[in-house]
């Protein structure tokens, strides 16, 4: 069994500089994937306040005073949550775009421009995120 030899700090700290596009794509995809599944769990947790809410009076529901609606509204009032939501969008968009890139790679399409398609995913993610900021922030203030 061989193992990598420790060549001290020089190697460990500066290695990332030498990463190729494909390695960054891999790291980002991983990161975004984990964020998304993490979010899915919290998302369902928050949404399941709808279960007790379902037992509430019609009037309460109509007045939007049920626990589900209250939770969501309270959360949405926090600026932090809004910012995190934009972040989530960015994460999701990148994961989708790069995921599409990976699906193409799996099909053997466009392998020569795999680095360009990664940069394109990054740029597009940025653009879409910026463009959607108004919608997400709307009503927060």
């Amino acid at each position: 069994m061989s193992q990598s030899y420790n060549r001290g700090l020089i190697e460990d700290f500066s290695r990332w500089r030498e990463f190729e596009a494909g390695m960054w794509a891999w790291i980002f995809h991983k990161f975004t994937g984990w964020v998304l599944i993490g979010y899915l769990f919290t998302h369902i947790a928050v949404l399941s306040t709808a279960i007790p809410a379902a037992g509430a009076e019609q009037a309460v529901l109509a007045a939007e005073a049920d626990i589900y609606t209250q939770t969501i509204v309270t959360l949405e009032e926090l600026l932090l949550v809004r910012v995190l939501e934009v972040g989530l969008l960015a994460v999701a968009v990148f994961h989708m775009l790069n995921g599409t890139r990976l699906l193409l790679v799996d099909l053997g399409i466009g392998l020569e421009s795999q680095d360009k398609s990664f940069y394109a995913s990054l740029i597009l993610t940025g653009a879409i995120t910026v463009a959607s900021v108004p919608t997400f922030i709307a009503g927060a203030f």
Partner: protein
Amino acid sequence: MAERYSSFQQGGTMWFLQRVTAVFLLVVLAFHFFLLHFVNHADEVSFLASSARMETLSYYSLMVLFLFTATFHGVNGVYNALVNQGLSGTKRTVIKWTLIAASALLIVQGVRTANAWAGGFPLF
């Protein structure tokens, strides 16, 4: 001579399912985001509005399918990532079953929520 690694795994099937679910998610997630952030704004959400959507069979089943695929895709992705990093042996078995349990929990809870909105399984 090198050791032969022959433990034949159904890596192929899982790999393939990861891609298939990805294609599905690509469409549904886009739809989901669009519907709940752009068509309807998140801060305007209410139980009744959610309920109204959930009461249609097509939306309900799409969302449940969304939940299933997203859970599979996400949890399988996490599991693969760990295995790729060298997770093995008992640790692997333990984590595998923990993840499966978590997925089951997530799905049960998710379906219960959907049912709460729909007032039981939507029949039309």
